[in-house]
């Protein structure tokens, strides 16, 4: 019995004192495991798909979330995006469905729409593309909204309806998840703020990791042990991980992949839960095997000298289409999912049979043979 998603806030956050105590009684290693979330983020389903780190929760890695073997990739990143758009369009056309893109105005979702706009005719865009957006989406990329969205897309709807969409059986919901994991990690930004930008290209060491963990864990006695555990993940990587940037990129790429794929689904309404078919009526755009292999083969070149260059390649593709110099030069990464998931009930866990639960996790989903004992 295993899970494909768990809500770490419900299970491990200290606000749930009574629930947390109950869980720790069932599985004592959760007491150490909860410290992972001080380092990453409160709300994530940490799970190492490389298999190096064993956690106290029995998780199943979905087939399409498994780490791909490193084969050759014959396309560049821009071509991979176009290929992906074509693949999704073919699927939508065949299934007589519309593609609903969860658009925030940020780099990832703008790139999705640019990819569709490049391969589809105006008539196809009108017939097959739905854009889900919020007030923040318009403000985040005003030129794209004015120049392209309002003119090209007939079906523009509020992003808040994403929870209900899959239940209608007329849409394939597409998110921009996965691109952060292809290109880097938000944890690096924390590190840059505490040091400076040059730290990204410094050689990674266990000592640096311990010092970083100490800041987040406030000298918790488990700090050194956690550093050892995370270091194991680096050692097991199929590619050479040497710099600070690469280290955090790999952690994100290997340990947060399934979490970001699944997280938006935790908020679906009941009809959408029943109707959900992973990779059929829901997918994350940047999660193809080819894109992952591309990232693993190019991981030495994912970032320029400055943090401002984060996802520069994506911004250049957008610039070629939208010609917005300000967006190219100054657009920084902003978390946007928070705007639509906040204030909504989340499933506590989702099982491998895609059943949603809002109650405590039963004992059988925990194990005490893991790295956090």
């Amino acid at each position, binding site marked *: 019995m295993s899970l494909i998603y768990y809500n770490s*806030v419900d299970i491990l956050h200290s*606000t749930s004192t009574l629930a947390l105590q109950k869980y720790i009684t069932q599985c004592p290693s959760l007491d150490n495991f909860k410290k992972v979330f001080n380092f990453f983020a409160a*709300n994530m389903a940490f799970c190492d798909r490389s298999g190096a780190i064993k956690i106290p929760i029995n998780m199943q890695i979905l087939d399409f979330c498994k780490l791909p073997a490193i084969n050759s990739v014959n396309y560049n990143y821009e071509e991979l995006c176009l290929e992906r758009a074509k693949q999704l369009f073919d699927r939508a056309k065949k299934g007589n469905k519309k593609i609903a893109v969860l658009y925030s105005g940020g780099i990832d979702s703008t790139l999705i729409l640019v990819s569709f706009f490049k391969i589809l005719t105006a008539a196809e865009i009108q017939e097959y593309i739905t854009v889900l957006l*919020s007030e923040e989406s318009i403000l985040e990329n005003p030129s794209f909204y004015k120049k392209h969205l*309002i003119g090209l897309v007939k079906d523009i709807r509020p992003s808040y309806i994403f929870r209900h969409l899959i239940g209608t059986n007329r849409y394939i919901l597409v998110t921009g998840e996965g691109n952060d994991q292809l290109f880097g990690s938000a944890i690096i930004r924390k590190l840059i703020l505490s040091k400076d930008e040059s730290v990204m290209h410094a050689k990674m060491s266990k000592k640096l990791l311990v010092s970083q963990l100490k800041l987040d864990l406030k000298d918790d006695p488990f700090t050194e042990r956690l550093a050892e555990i995370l270091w194991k993940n680096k050692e097991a990587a199929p590619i050479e991980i040497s710099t600070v940037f690469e280290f955090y990129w790999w952690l994100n790429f290997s340990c947060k992949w399934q979490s970001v794929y699944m997280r938006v689904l935790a908020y679906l309404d009941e009809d959408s839960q029943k109707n959900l078919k992973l990779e059929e009526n829901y997918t994350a755009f940047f999660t193809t095997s080819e894109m992952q292999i591309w990232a693993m083969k190019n991981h030495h070149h994912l970032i320029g000298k400055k943090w401002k260059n984060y996802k520069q390649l994506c911004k250049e593709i957008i610039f070629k289409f939208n010609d917005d110099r300000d967006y190219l030069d100054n657009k920084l990464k902003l978390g946007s999912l928070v705007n639509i998931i906040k*204030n909504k009930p989340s499933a506590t866990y989702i099982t491998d049979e895609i059943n949603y639960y809002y109650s405590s996790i039963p004992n059988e989903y925990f194990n005490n043979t893991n790295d956090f004992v």
Partner: protein
Amino acid sequence: MSNKKLSFYGHIRKQVPFFLNKKTHAIFDRDTGRILFLTNYIDTVNAFKYFANTSHLYNIRKKVRAMPPNSSLTANRAYNFSLDLSQGGLKETDNQIIETKVKNMAEQKKFRILRNKAALLDLVYSHISSIRAAMFGSVYGQQIVYVLKHIEAIHVLRTSQDDKLSSEPWSFPFLNSYANLKKISLEQAAREVQIKADISITKLAENEELRLKYTALIVQAGTTQELLDIYYQFEKEFKLYGQL
């Protein structure tokens, strides 16, 4: 009385700003005439009607201000309505608010749970208010401008293409000025307004659903432990789920 229960009230109350110079409502227990709670939210008063034998008095601030400085509740710290529950209570008379002793443990227990409920309701409403405040313009009357603009947009978009749309400036005054300023057609202006209105309506509807859900949960809660669970759920949905 355990410290834990007192701290629940104190913890919640500290998070909700109370303004004595704004509309101040007092909720009274009908049986004893004692004041249970002061609040700035008429919604809290309305919710109380459904779960307690209470009455309501609007704008009690003068009497609160007139209380003696050494009383359990003074004007300066009115927001912190944390009386010593083992001893004190408040009662309103014709001219002033006076302190009275709580009679027995049963009464004390009843007051405590009602105060905790009211405090949690105030917290929920203050969060919901902050979300709604961010959605609407702060310029006086702007909300009605948005509504009128939306009504015009619906009219323009529903007009069949065969019908000639009146382009007189006074036909659609809000939309026309918007379209002229942005140098776009009336139809495009209508579409832009419709999209923004759809976003606001959906967001507001979700927000209202949340308000109804938490009001019902709090009204139905029977113990402080249940209120604590509701508070944790609220904290998670409002804050922690967003820490991605």
